[in-house]
Structure formats: structure tokens, C-alpha cells
């Protein structure tokens, strides 16, 4: 099957592979340690583990866009901020 029209590149393939791995790791996490029931965090609304992953990914997209607009194209520090943001979301939200 010719997929050249999709214009794949190595970095974008890695990007999607990481997202797929994150989703699969949520499944594995739930199998190993069930506990995805909703809970209330500092934002005072109920979230499941899946919700927290969604918030992390969406927030990370905006962190990267803001970094790109305000700082520059080197996004390694933005990625570190996203990692920290993800940890905070999973612990406190």
C-alpha cells in the first residue's frame, strides 16, 4: 500500500508512536493496578486517569505553542515543562 501521500517523516512517526505508547501504557496501568474511577482534585471536578492524560496532552500542545510563539523554536525546555505539567496533573487534578 502506497502511503507516500501521507508524507511521513521520522519525527512525526515518533510523535504518534509516543502518543500510542502513552494510551497503551494507560491500559497496562489499569490492568496492573485498577483504580481509574473518577476523583476530585484541585480543580474541583471529577477526572479519571484517561481524563488526566487528555488534559496533559492538550495542555502540552498549548505549552509548546506558547513556547514557540514567545521563546523560540527550541522546544526541549518546553518538553521538560510538559513533563512537569503531566506529573502535576496526574498527582493533583
Amino acid at each position: 500500500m502506497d502511503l507516500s501521500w501521507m508524507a511521513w517523516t521520522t519525527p512525526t512517526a515518533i510523535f504518534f508512536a509516543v502518543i500510542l505508547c502513552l494510551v497503551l501504557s494507560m491500559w497496562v496501568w489499569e490492568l496492573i493496578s485498577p483504580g481509574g474511577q473518577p476523583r476530585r482534585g484541585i480543580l474541583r471536578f471529577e477526572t479519571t486517569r484517561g481524563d488526566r492524560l487528555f488534559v496533559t496532552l492538550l495542555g502540552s500542545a498549548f505549552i509548546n505553542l506558547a513556547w514557540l510563539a514567545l521563546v523560540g523554536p527550541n522546544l526541549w525546555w518546553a518538553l521538560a515543562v510538559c513533563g512537569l505539567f503531566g506529573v502535576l496533573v496526574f498527582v493533583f487534578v
Partner: protein
Amino acid sequence: MKSWNNKAWFLVLPVLLLVAFSAIIPLMTVVNYSVQDSFGSNEFYWVGLEWFQEVLSSERFHNALMRNLLFSAIILLIEIPLGIAVALAMPRRGWGVSVCLVLMALPLLIPWNVVGTIWQVFARVDIGLLGYSLTQLGFDYNYTQDTLDAWITLIVMDVWHWTSLVVLLSYSGLVSIPPAYYQAARIDGASRWAVFRYIQLPKMRRVLVIAVLLRFMDSFMIYTEPFVVTGGGPGNATTFLSIDLVQMAIGQFDLGPAAAMSLIYFLIILLVSWVFYTVMTQQDADAESGRGHS
């Protein structure tokens, strides 16, 4: 004891395949395009985040985004209260129900480009009933030359086209309220406002979440009607994000910047929809838990 049945996944599979073909694969392709430059013939050159930087610093993008946000805000502020008001005024029994429902459904059945054409002709000052009448009444109305007139025309057209959706959703919420609630309110001597505020509005919350989400997403992605009526003009006064995006992607064949812009556009829609959904469903959950504790 095993409490789930994995056979259910087979029932979900067709939807999963459909979503993959209609949404996930195109989205992946857009991500791939957004980091490359193309000169046609499937030839691509890596440019990294250049297009994202270009779009984020572009005044053209900022202006189109602001226009879109303003348009969606106005649409929601008009259509949601108006839709609820019309639904409240509609009869609940008798022959009038069918007549009202058919009348309300009519604008929703008309294709977007036909709606645009209807209003493009209707609002013309030379031959259109609306435009000609307003001019004869002494109003200086011309949607092809005046920014405010163009905006008013688009807003009135959208209200005409889509308020019916809010009406039908609100009406479905209203008719599902058991009569016992109204009987209890009558016994308590509740006013008309109190009935609306404490019975009808909370009971309509779920359908209103859907109405707000649908109207926000639709109005934020509006393309066909303004394209047919004003073509984005006068000047760029009604050039919304979608019109700008099509001009960039198809008019100028700038696939890379257009892909970057569409991803930013998608993320904004996703964020706002998530915020709307979370806030409104959370109020619902709070109300439920409040009842549970009392």
C-alpha cells in the same frame, strides 16, 4: 467473577474503523504536512516548526481568530436564549405541536450553500426583499460595502438557520419533564420564573450542553454561508479562520502553513469544547451529588 464481556469490542470496531478513516488518518496527514514544504507531485521538504512560528506571529491569523471568537460569542448569546424562549412558547399538546416542529425543522433541512444563496439574494439592495425594503425605509444598508451590515446579515442568517436546532433540543428537554414537578410547583405557589429557574432550566441542562457545544463548534467552523454571502468581505471583515484556511490551502497552495494553521484551529476548538463540556456536566454532577447528600 469476571464482570465484563470483551465481545463488546467487536461492536465498537466499525465505529473505530470509521473514525480512523475519517478523522485519525487525515489528522496524522495534516501533522505530517505541517512540518514540511510541498511543491506538488508528492515532493516534501522538512522545515520543522517554521510554519507554526509563521502562523502564530501572523496578524492575518490573529485577526481571523478574533473575528471567529466574536462571531461564535454573539451567536451563542443570541441563539441559546432565543431557542429556549421559543421552546417555552411552543404548545405541548394538540395539532399545534406537529405544525411547530415541522416549521422549526425546515431551516435545518436546507443545505448550507442554499442558505447562503437565499440570503445573498434576499439582502441585496437592488433586487433583494430585505435589502431593497431597508433602503426604501431610509436605512443606509449595503452588506457588500459596509462591515457592520455584513456582520449583521451573517448573524441574522445564522440565527435564522440554526436557532431551530436549539429550539428542538430545548423542546425535547421540556417535554421530558414529568408533570409531577409542575403539580408540586403549583401546590407550592411557585411563580412562572421560579418554575423556569428551578425546574425547567435544570432539567434542560443536558440538552443545552449539546446545544451549546454544537452551536459553538458549528459557528467556529463556519465556512459556506459567509463564503457565499460576503466572500469574506468587505475587505477581510468577514474572513473567518475557515475561509482564510481554504484561501491559504487551495487558493495559494501553501499546504504547510495551512496544515499548521488547521492544527492550531483544531486545538482551540478542542480546548473550548472540553471547557464547555466539563463546566456544564460538572454543574450537573454537583446538582446530582447535592441531591444525594440532602
